[in-house]
């Protein structure tokens, strides 16, 4: 039985071996790059298709209804139907719109969403680009997508779109800080920015429990904060104010139809998978098996299994939580998440310097619980809603 874990790596080397004689060195290098890129361009869009149908069926089941079951068996050809619909629909460009920026916005969004996958370790030595500053690359390219969101909103000269774009950019910028700082805690403990090394640091086992960071007090708090910030960064449900259908129709992609609209959705889901992938790499032990006995399942299978469980978690929160108002959104980010993340850094430092043993569980755990109780209650439990103040535009 060929080594299932390294099957793709061996496949690539075998293919390169075949082309050894035919192509020159530079062409060979190009082919090797393509061989590691093309699978990503195929796997994640199909995951996007599967995820749209799982999301709609999951939300349906949560609301005691079936969800799409007309197209194909149990509705599993629905993504194909959506895709064809998106391709057939006419692509309108409003007359007053700024053509170039209107076209460029979804393209940049999809490009940044795809380039982010270059550093994501999908399986044991299955990472496209092993940068030693991989995490920084991830956040740098992720931050560039805010600008594309703004371009989309501004290019259409439409009040609602601009409102949605400003809300989206404000939200993404203010939730980037908890996202980055919660991953800094992991960097502090592992001492490296390279994602494969972070995953290697989590591959040992402690008794039957794996040494994943999520099973440490600062790791668990970091994981929760990371996931909340990821939810906000991808503009998903409790934080989907930018495209709040009820208030401002569809936010920044209001004037996009046809294929550009499908590009926006593709970019949204791809960035969601990328951030979930990062969450898995940092806190859930990337491609490591949870228990020593389950090593026979290949490493990339573990990565995708965890990715799908995280996706179900996102769908679950989308089905449950109502949308946050803009000021609640900002309050949560600046008054709860950022202080909490800074305290999480202190907890990680405490964990590192108190050395192994039960003591460090007690100290960092207690610090986090006290911080949570102290930070959480006073500002979110107050019953008196302040007097409504009006501010008129000058």
């Amino acid at each position, binding site marked *: 039985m060929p080594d299932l874990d390294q099957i793709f790596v061996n496949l690539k080397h075998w293919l390169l071996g075949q082309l050894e004689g035919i192509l020159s060195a530079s062409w060979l290098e190009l082919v090797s790059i393509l061989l590691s890129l093309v699978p990503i361009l195929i796997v994640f869009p199909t995951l996007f298709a599967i995820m749209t149908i799982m999301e709609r069926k999951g939300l349906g*089941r949560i609301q005691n*209804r079936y969800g799409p079951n007309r197209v194909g068996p149990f509705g599993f050809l629905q993504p194909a139907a959506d895709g064809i619909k998106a391709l057939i629909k006419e692509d309108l460009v409003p007359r007053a719109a700024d053509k170039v920026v209107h076209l460029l916005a979804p393209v940049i969004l999809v490009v940044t969403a795809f380039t982010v996958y270059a550093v994501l370790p999908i399986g044991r030595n299955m990472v496209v680009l092993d940068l030693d500053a991989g995490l920084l690359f991830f956040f740098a390219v992720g931050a560039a997508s805010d600008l594309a969101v703004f371009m989309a909103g501004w290019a259409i000269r439409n009040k609602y779109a601009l409102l949605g774009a400003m809300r989206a950019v404000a939200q993404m910028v203010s939730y980037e800080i908890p996202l980055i700082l919660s991953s800094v805690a992991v960097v502090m403990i592992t001492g490296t920015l390279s994602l494969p090394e972070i995953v290697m640091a989590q591959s040992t086992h402690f008794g039957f429990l794996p040494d994943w960071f999520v099973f440490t007090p600062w790791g668990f708090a970091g994981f929760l904060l990371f996931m909340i910030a990821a939810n906000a960064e991808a503009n998903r449900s409790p934080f989907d104010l930018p495209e709040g259908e009820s208030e401002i129709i569809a936010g920044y992609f209001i004037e996009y139809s046809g294929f550009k609209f499908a590009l926006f959705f593709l970019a949204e889901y791809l960035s969601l998978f990328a951030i979930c992938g990062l969450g898995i790499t940092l806190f859930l032990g990337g491609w490591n098996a949870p228990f020593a006995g389950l090593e026979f399942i290949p490493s990339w299978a573990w990565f995708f299994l965890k990715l799908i469980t995280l996706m179900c978690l996102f769908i679950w929160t989308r089905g*449950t*939580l109502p949308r946050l108002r803009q000021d609640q959104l900002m309050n949560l980010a600046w008054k709860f998440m950022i202080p909490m993340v800074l305290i999480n850094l202190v907890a990680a430092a405490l964990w590192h310097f108190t050395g192994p043993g039960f003591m460090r569980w007690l100290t960092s755990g207690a610090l986090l619980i006290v911080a949570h*109780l102290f930070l959480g209650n006073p500002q979110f439990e107050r019953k008196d809603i302040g007097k409504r103040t009006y501010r008129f535009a000058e």
Partner: protein
Amino acid sequence: MLGAGIIKGMAETARNFLGSYVSAERLTTVQYPEERSPQIENARQFPFLVFDGDDPMKGLRCVACQICEKECPPKCIYIVKSKDKRVDYKGQAQFYPATFDIDLSVCMSCQICVEVCPFESIKMDTAYELSTADRFGGLLVNKHQLAKSNEHYRKFHPTDAAASDGALAVEVAKAQAKAKADVEAKAKAAADAKAKTAAAQSTPAPATA
């Protein structure tokens, strides 16, 4: 504790999600074309004309009295009386509608025409799959499309059908009683007339002196 409410909410949706796979009655959706939810007793869509017997045009109860045409709020009924008369179920000679059109796109199924009709001839149907491609002519139904048998009416409006049949039976009985009374009166009148002529023959002299 911040977040306790969220956990409660998530537990609730999880219960819904798992429950929908476990207990069937949670999922109340009716898959429309295949399954159909049962019609309630007095569901009503658009009016139709009731006819007795088997020939729709001859058995039409409608006597073109045009009360429903006048009473209809959106004015969607159009009746043209026939020139000749024919005998209705009570034996009287009555008109019948030459044309009886209802514009379904205008009708608001308010059932006023049914209430004002003195002859129980127009009732409300429950067929709702009437979508047609032709927006104007397709929804203007004439006399032939409107006519439906009494059995059809009894099938989906049993109580109303029974009530209207009872009223009709009373009418028929009254009409027959009146007819019988007329026959007797005529017979008595004929008898009186005969008796008077007999009496006139036996005593013609005094009258002339």
